[in-house]
């Protein structure tokens, strides 16, 4: 959050005023939630230059739909849902490009990178390795179905729990688990396919 968190009552008051047609409190809601919205957009769409434009579209959409917010979930969750749905539509319009960088590496360099990733686990890769892996994972995500991109983005990049994802996507926890499992499996198959088709 950019500003100190207001108490829940204050946020509810801002939302109600916006629902009655005031604009000014919406500015306060934007300041309160913009970091979260920017993070979701960036991790799902991964286009740094487009994040702000997409954030504007999301906030406008939220403003226009704010009367439908019924206080059942937190405003943050509701706004995340609007953001994820918008990103989902955006991703559907985009189409993937092929994986290049990782697969253009020589065999030896690729095997060394794999070995380092295996040995180092979650941390300790040098900056160059990280760049390569980022490129590689980004491209793989771009090739994946949009549903997989969204669910993996929320889990692996936004680091949300399965329960939080279920709430944002209005799904059952078990459904999210199944989708995650399938998404990981498809992505691993894609890695294998690329490896074999090289």
């Amino acid at each position: 959050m950019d500003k100190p968190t207001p108490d829940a009552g204050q946020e509810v008051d801002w939302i109600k005023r916006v629902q009655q047609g005031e604009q000014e409190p919406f500015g306060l809601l934007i300041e309160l939630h913009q970091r979260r919205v920017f993070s979701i957009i960036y991790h799902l769409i991964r286009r740094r230059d487009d994040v702000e434009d997409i954030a504007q579209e999301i906030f406008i959409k939220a403003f226009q739909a704010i009367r439908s917010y019924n206080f059942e979930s937190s405003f943050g969750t509701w706004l995340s849902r609007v953001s994820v749905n918008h990103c989902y539509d955006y991703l559907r319009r985009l189409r993937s490009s092929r994986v290049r960088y990782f697969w253009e590496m020589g065999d030896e360099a690729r095997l060394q990178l794999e070995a380092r990733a295996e040995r180092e686990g979650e941390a300790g890769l040098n900056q160059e390795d990280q760049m390569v892996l980022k490129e590689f994972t980004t491209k793989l995500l771009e090739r994946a179905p949009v549903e997989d991109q969204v669910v993996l983005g929320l889990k692996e990049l936004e680091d949300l729990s399965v329960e939080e994802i279920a709430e944002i996507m209005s799904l059952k926890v078990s459904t999210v688990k199944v989708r995650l499992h399938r998404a990981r499996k498809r992505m691993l198959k894609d890695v294998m396919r690329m490896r074999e088709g090289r």
Partner: protein
Amino acid sequence: MRCKDVETILGEAKPKSLPEPVREHLLGCNSCRGIWRDWLLLRAGFVALAEDPAPQASLGFGVRLIRRLEFVQDPGSAAAEFFERVGRRFVLAGLLLAMLFILALVLPSSGPLRGPATAEVYLAQPEPSTQREGPILGDEFSDSNEITPVDSTNGSGKR
């Protein structure tokens, strides 16, 4: 352990917290070890991406957005509300008409729901007479100048 079970666990597991039976399985199974290696590569990629900080909103983002909302809201809200209301009525009227049309097609041509409009109507019609009826009080009291039929039995047809 079966490969299928191991695959499921690998997807959920953190690299340094693999259960012992899975580790043992990986030692003896090339296929699962390959999957694990790919998964570690992917996880490392995810971690690298997640650590990449999202861009910050530029200075005045909120102010610009609120200014934009002024242009978005006015034409949008009134028109949208109007079209929503009108559109909803059109849809409802359309549905009603469609339902009536379907009912008209489905219902039988006669029945309790059909009015008398299409039912057969029998009106009392005078039966056409085949024989001319004679006057009740006899010919003597008749004002008519017509000639009464001839009685053929006694041959006295003249008056």
